[in-house]
């Protein structure tokens, strides 16, 4: 089935749909963004030859709804600049005042402050009793912050599996609280969001943890927390902490790819060698794609299923909530010169429900549901500077120890996973990264001969290539980013273009797309092709 892109013609042709309206809005925003950024570039260039026109310039990027926030943020800054622009630069060059200031050392500058460098003092006043680092201040330091964010992401292809034309339509409020002490600190990161796709309010606590430092050799963090390790870029081999793949494919911020877990993390440092041991008492799996929001290929029915399917959402069977069913993660790491080395270990479960719960192990019709199989992982990684860039290599052995022979169709086979990556700056502020990733499935013959659906099993060798391009422009306020996954053997691809523009300080707009294509409906990215979407996100941080 060929994906059809929603064109404006279709919209006019009387298919009244929120999707088309949203696409139009995003296209409009993209154009506004582009013109704003360009206008700024031009203006910056123009300023070289002309006199500075700070006051009258029409506040550059004209993104409709932002203008309010911009105008409120503006006046102070402009006032100070008007005074500044002509004055100090010229004067400083003619009088050479700063040299004198630097001359004798101590009580110098007061006499001068009012003219040349007055702006420093204005700035102090603006700050008032601002937080920040108080020299030798009180024992506890408190901080509150967060953001408000809106996200809309319409599908841009026709989907027969999903009735909802939007993969995301949500307004989110994030609260960050920190209480920091020399040896103890507490942290809270909580989200509340109104989700128009699943028509409900979600409370998602991403972090509620306490950190304790016991000298330079020991520390501990316990509570709900987000955890990450490994050397891959969007590829995780030895990182078996929970991920949220729904968030990844619908345009939420990168941080939402990682999901939290209730864990205890202990770190031991001996000289420059570190040992992290993490215990998650109650197994916390990935937030996987279950058909509700994003459609995927279900081999049980042999087709892509979404929210229209009666078996959606998929609800797997969880391991019993007993302490011995928790997961344990370990990492031993250190550096030899500039080379970073690490060894990893994991005992727990596969993070995705890729095992079958059967009443009769040989009968595919006796499926009770999906479940999580036991898994142990051992691996290692190396990362080092090389030829002006960074080179990394990582390997992991996925020991699916309940089916080492590979003959049980209900249990996934063991795998070897490997990764090689190289990243460097090609031009100033332009980064390129390349990765090659391999999944080798052991006992593949046994797998295909015993599988209930051998035609959908992944190849013995699954290859994946990724490319990252990143360009920062306009004083790092504009970021153009492209990330591409491509599998030459499964012939599927996932393309993530993104533009981030920090309009004025607390406000950022992000426009991007999640484009999935594949020859077949059952490959890793191919199964997601009906979810291809564009998105726009606006965030106000405080």
């Amino acid at each position, binding site marked *: 089935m060929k994906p059809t892109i929603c064109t404006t013609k279709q919209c006019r042709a009387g298919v009244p749909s929120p999707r088309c309206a949203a696409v139009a809005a995003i296209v409009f925003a993209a154009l506004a963004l582009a013109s704003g950024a360009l206008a700024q570039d031009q203006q910056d260039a123009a300023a070289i030859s002309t006199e500075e026109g700070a006051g009258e310039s029409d506040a550059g990027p004209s993104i409709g709804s932002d203008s309010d926030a911009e105008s409120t943020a503006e006046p102070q800054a402009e006032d100070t600049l008007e005074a*500044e622009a002509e004055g100090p630069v010229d004067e400083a060059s003619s009088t050479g005042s700063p040299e004198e200031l630097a001359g*004798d050392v101590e009580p110098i500058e007061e006499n001068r402050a009012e003219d040349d460098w007055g702006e420093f003092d204005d700035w102090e006043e603006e700050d008032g009793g601002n937080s920040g680092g108080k*020299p030798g201040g009180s024992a506890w*330091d408190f901080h509150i912050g967060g953001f408000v964010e809106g996200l809309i992401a319409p599908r841009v292809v026709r989907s027969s599996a999903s009735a909802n034309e939007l993969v995301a339509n949500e307004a989110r409020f994030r609260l960050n609280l920190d209480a920091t002490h020399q040896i103890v600190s507490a942290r809270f990161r909580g989200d509340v969001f109104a989700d128009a796709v699943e028509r409900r309010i979600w409370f998602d606590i991403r972090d509620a943890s306490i950190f304790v430092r016991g000298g330079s050799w020991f520390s501990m963090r316990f509570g709900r927390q987000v955890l990450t390790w490994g050397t891959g870029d969007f590829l995780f081999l030895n990182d078996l902490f929970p991920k949220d793949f729904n968030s990844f494919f619908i345009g939420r911020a990168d941080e939402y790819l990682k999901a939290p877990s209730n864990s205890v993390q202990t770190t031991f440092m001996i000289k420059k060698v570190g040992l992290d041991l993490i215990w998650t008492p109650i197994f916390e799996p990935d937030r996987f794609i279950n058909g509700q929001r994003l459609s995927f290929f279900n081999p049980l029915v042999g087709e892509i299923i979404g929210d229209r399917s009666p078996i959606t959402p998929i609800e797997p069977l969880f391991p019993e909530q007993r302490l011995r069913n928790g997961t344990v993660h370990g990492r031993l790491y250190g550096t030899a010169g500039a080379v970073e080395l690490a060894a990893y270990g994991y005992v727990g479960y596969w993070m995705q429900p890729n095992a079958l719960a059967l009443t009769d192990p040989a009968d595919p019709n006796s499926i009770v549901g999906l479940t999580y199989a036991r898994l142990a992982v051992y691996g290692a990684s190396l990362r080092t500077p090389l030829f002006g860039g960074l080179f990394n290599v990582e390997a992991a052995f996925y020991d699916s120890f309940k089916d080492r022979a590979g003959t049980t169709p209900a249990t996934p086979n063991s795998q070897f996973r490997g990764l090689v990556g190289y990243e460097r700056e090609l031009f100033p502020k332009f980064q390129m990264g390349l990765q090659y990733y391999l999944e080798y499935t052991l006992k593949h013959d046994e797998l295909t001969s015993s599988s209930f659906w051998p035609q959908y099993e992944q190849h013995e060798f699954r290859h994946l290539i990724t490319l990252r391009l990143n360009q920062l422009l306009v004083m790092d306020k504009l970021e153009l980013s492209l990330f591409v996954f491509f599998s030459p053997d499964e012939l599927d691809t996932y393309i993530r273009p993104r533009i981030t523009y920090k309009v004025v300080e*607390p406000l950022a707009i992000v426009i991007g797309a999640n484009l999935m294509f594949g020859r077949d409906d059952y490959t890793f990215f191919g199964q997601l092709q009906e979810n291809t979407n564009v998105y726009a996100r606006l965030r106000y941080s405080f």
Partner: protein
Amino acid sequence: MKTLTRTWWAAVAAAIFLSTSTMSAEAGDLKDASQIVNRTNNAQYYAANDGRALVRMKIVDSKGRSQRRQFAVLRRDLKDGGDQNYLVVFDQPADVRNTAFLVKKHATKDDDRWLYLPGLDLVKRIAASDERTSFVGTHFFYEDISGRHPDEDKHELLETTETEYVVKSTPKSSKGVEFAHYTLRINKKTFLPSKIEYVNAQGKVYRRIETAKVDTVQGQPTITRLKVSDLESGGYTLSDVSNVSYDLGIPDDIFIEGSLRNPPQKWLR
């Protein structure tokens, strides 16, 4: 016998010459531009053995829109004029709070740098990058923050005024630099630069760094206010350093990955 005497005389002559030259250096002005620049490099970037500071920056673009940056810095020197370790923890703007940098600066090879992204709990190693590009969106370059190695330029003493040395520095290789040369005005007592002007191939000053305030902290003259101006666009960045402390005895073992995730509060405040 004869040769021996001559050698002896030569040694005495050399000793006298050396002592007079050192004496004149202490009493009067330095004549060697490289020596001046080396002392400036040490005074500006290697004061004491370690240090802590809170840095605030205000970035004003050509349209007058301003932005803030605020971060705490810990520094430890491994060797004066040589390798250093830095830990930088961001406080502002709000969207990058708790983002942290770990930099192992090397005098003779590329620095090792790590960046911590708190949302993902990700420690990302950063590839070596152009040193003459914006430092976190300010008008400062990475090189202004961590220092340009004196050996990369040829230095020429243009003028010695009552209070200052004026040195012209020309890059030995034009690779990776956007200036044709720059001039430094260096205070004779403190060896801190009061003004640096960068000149392009057309002979025009297009970029300027000015010292606005110097404080003496624990006997170390320290630049606490700086302004860098992009004269072409009209944008500029002000930098204000406070809460400065030297020789705290910061141990080397805090400059590790773990300190990115959980910054060592004991030294940061």
